[in-house]
């Protein structure tokens, strides 16, 4: 399977230089071509071209209102829940245009999980939160559900903390734990890509650190696209970084390059904290 090969490739090259990782570069997950998006008359995304690779962490940074969250929500078409949204251009996901009429959003969102800014568990037990995705996709067998719940919670590194309280309400645990429950919930639908929309902005530093470590762990099996306000976070956890400004991609490169040797003056100004 290509995913397993990719994981092998990735772990082999893990300690090597950035260039060699480029040489064995994996296939792309998302290829965005000339994407434009309007909220009514507001032109929010302008001619976006981005090629997002498999098993990497891609960070999207930029000042408030630059369109980074909008772009992320376009990748699983959640943006369409906002009234009066218009798009043009293409987003190829694994070779298929997600805007195609016969591509159902439900199918797309089963392959692309999402973690939101504010932890948003359902007002149900921890178990039911994790089992929600599998259940809506038709899994009823209790034994299989049990296995999925355990695997997902382990995957989100929270199994040991909650294994004895699976039947408690998900709101009875801390905010940081809730966010990892939400990550586990996204893992339970066995996605290919995980989108994260500022997943640590509502969390304390220790919870943030745990999530960042988790992201490093998860990229072995998933492709992760993360929007963040925190530039240090982008530098710490991502392989590639895209800098958005006023709805445009100003620069997209390896994270090291973006942070040490940006080619655009505006990227440099933003990174060095001159605005934003």
């Amino acid at each position: 399977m290509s995913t397993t090969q990719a994981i092998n490739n990735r772990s082999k090259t893990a300690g090597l230089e950035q260039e060699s990782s480029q040489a064995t570069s994996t296939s792309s997950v998302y290829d965005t071509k000339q994407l434009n998006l309007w909220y009514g008359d507001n032109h929010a995304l302008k001619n976006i071209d981005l090629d997002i690779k498999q098993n990497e962490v891609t960070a999207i940074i930029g000042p408030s209102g630059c369109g980074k969250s909008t772009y992320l929500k376009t990748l699983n078409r959640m943006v369409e829940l906002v009234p009066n949204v218009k798009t043009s251009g293409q987003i190829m996901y694994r070779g298929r245009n997600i805007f195609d009429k016969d591509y159902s959003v439900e199918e797309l969102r089963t392959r692309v999980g999402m973690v939101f800014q504010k932890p948003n568990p359902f007002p149900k037990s921890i178990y039911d939160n994790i089992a929600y995705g599998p259940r809506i996709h038709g899994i009823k067998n209790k034994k299989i559900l049990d296995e999925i719940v355990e695997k997902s919670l382990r995957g989100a590194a929270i199994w040991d903390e909650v294994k004895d309280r699976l039947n408690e309400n998900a709101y009875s645990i801390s905010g940081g734990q809730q966010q990892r429950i939400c990550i586990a919930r996204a893992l339970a639908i066995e996605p290919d890509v995980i989108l994260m929309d500022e997943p640590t902005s509502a969390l304390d530093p220790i919870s943030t650190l745990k999530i960042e470590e988790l992201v490093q762990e998860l990229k072995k099996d998933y492709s992760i696209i993360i929007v963040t306000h925190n530039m240090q976070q982008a530098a710490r956890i991502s392989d590639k970084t895209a800098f958005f400004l006023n709805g445009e991609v100003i620069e997209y490169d390896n994270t090291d390059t973006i942070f040490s040797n940006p080619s655009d003056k505006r990227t440099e100004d933003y990174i060095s904290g001159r605005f934003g």
Partner: protein
Amino acid sequence: MRYIEHDIVVKRMNGRNVVNKLFKSIFLLATLSALLALVILLYQIVSQGASHLSIDFLTNFASRFPAEAGIKAALVGSIWLMLVVAPTSIILGVGSAIYLEEYAGKNRITTFIQMNISNLAGVPSVVFGLLGLTIFVRALALGNSILAAGFTMSLLILPVIIVASQEAIRSVPGELRDASYGMGATKWQTIVRIILPAAIPGILTGSILALSRAIGETAPLIVVGVPVIIQFLPEGVMDTFTALPMQIYDWSSRPQQEFQQVAAAGIIVLMSVLLLMNSVAVFIRNKFEKRY
């Protein structure tokens, strides 16, 4: 230069406190006056009707003789009426609310529908009675049956249930919808598994309060032609019946002084039923209230 002179602030403090206390008293008085009216009403009813209240009163049919008059037919009739009104109005009302909140796009037509529903909530009940008379009693030839009266009452409280359910659905946090849609759930799955469970306390509270309005309404029943003196119990929804407010209205309009006491006893029964329904609403709200 300073804009706030603290000496002046201190000097004016007394005046401000007096005004504050004054308004507190005015508002307290307003609350008490409403409460006082209720207490007087209850006292009058209970002191008049308590003497007539007994098991016989609940098990006797209506009678020409005040001492033998009972409320059985009306009480059973009201329960039958509720058996028609509750399912009809809740299914239609919650269905409309779900459609308007979750499925309908925000355009001129839905705004128009929305506006009309809010206006319907303010239409006098006698008008709904005429509507019921025209459609259910005559056009559909249901006669003055439980079904015709029940449908009429359902129409009357439908706007209230729709608005209350819409508000309950709207108060479900958007993040929960996002989470569900984000995992590939369809709209219907999201509604059934996430939105309705979270909205059910609000929906039930609103519905029960609307039903208590229906059980106390008289005007639509009069217009639909519900009789007063009934000496048998209905056996199905196509039977004629009478209801608590009809019976009370009839008793209170009779000339004999004794019937005023019978009417008061009937009011006590009606109020007990209302109180019971409202307690159920409060109980449901407290039991199912969820934190987000």
